């Protein structure tokens, strides 16, 4: 197989050296085994080791290599190089502070995630074996528990861009519904109280960028709708 060459345009910023960010052009020769964008990035880093990005599992499970590719948030490890028009424009996830190149500071994102108490709350004495669920109750958690917290959704959400300190964001709200929907959790009312707020939940204007970008094909908008349904059925 002949070798392919691709054009990349990459966001570069090293706060120790650069006054401001700039875009750098690269021409890269790929090996036949390079299928995914992450393969290309790893190959590029072997040529220019000043380039920084996060990566770990390289198979869409850890969520480390989320970045903005040709204007859309994706995981580099799940993106086929051949599916992308060139030059491939790579930028860090929008709306979060840049630490260096494609690495962003996710503190705000995780702060919002922690604010919804992403763990089971059940003060009843633990049973001898386990807290059982019926298959139907378990079914409700599908499409919720799979989130890998890559932040593609929250950083594509304009409501999160404007209010990252107050709006929980699609990832956090998906996780919030994951625990609201769990029959083993006993803090439903407190969880709804925690979210009933014009900023924390109701900044969502159903823009649905989150659904568009989720690399795991999850649907935060639907989860947010279900939280609202729960609030309505509690209130009326």
């Amino acid at each position: 197989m002949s070798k392919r060459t691709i054009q990349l345009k990459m966001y570069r910023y090293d706060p120790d050296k650069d006054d401001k960010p700039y875009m750098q052009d690269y021409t890269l020769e790929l090996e036949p085994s390079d299928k995914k964008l992450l393969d290309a990035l790893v190959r590029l880093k072997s040529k220019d080791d000043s380039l920084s990005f996060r990566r770990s599992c390289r198979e869409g499970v850890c969520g480390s290599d989320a970045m903005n590719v040709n204007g859309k948030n994706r995981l580099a490890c799940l993106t086929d190089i051949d599916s992308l028009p060139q030059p491939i424009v790579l930028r860090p996830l929008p709306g979060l502070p840049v630490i260096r190149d494609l690495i962003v500071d996710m503190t705000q994102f995780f702060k919002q995630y922690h604010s919804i108490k992403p763990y089971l709350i059940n003060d009843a004495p633990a049973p001898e074996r386990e807290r059982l669920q019926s298959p139907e109750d378990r079914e409700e958690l599908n499409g919720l528990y799979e989130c890998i917290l890559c932040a593609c959704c929250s950083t594509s959400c304009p409501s999160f861009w404007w209010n990252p300190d107050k709006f929980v964001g699609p990832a956090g709200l998906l996780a919030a519904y994951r625990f609201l929907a769990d029959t083993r959790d006993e803090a439903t009312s407190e969880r709804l109280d925690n979210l009933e707020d014009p900023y924390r939940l109701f900044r969502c204007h159903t823009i649905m960028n989150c659904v568009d970008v989720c690399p795991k094909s999850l649907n935060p908008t639907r989860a947010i709708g279900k939280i609202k349904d729960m609030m309505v059925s509690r209130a009326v």
Partner: protein
Amino acid sequence: MVKRIVVGAHYGLRDWIAQRATALFMVIFTVLFAAAALGLPEMTYQTWSGLFRNSLVRFFAFLFFLALFYHAWIGVRDIFMDYIKPVGVRLTLHLVTIFLLVGYAGWAAQILWRL
């Protein structure tokens, strides 16, 4: 005041429902009113104002305007919450919007009951 992020106003659900309810009401009224207006034998001031002599039409038209202003209040407030960061400026804009919309509602009543 210390500079801390404060959330937890515990409202939002009522406005969220109201925005949808007012939208639904406006759609239904618009369709019915358009049907009634297009069904007029001729489009003159007399037939037009005759439509509003029916007090039921007048009542629902007024409700339409109230729905419109309440809907607008929630929408405009949302825009201010997203884009206007200083609390003092936001509060001022909220008050100006409320005064304007209440004024518009009074004005709408005056127009409707004068037709």
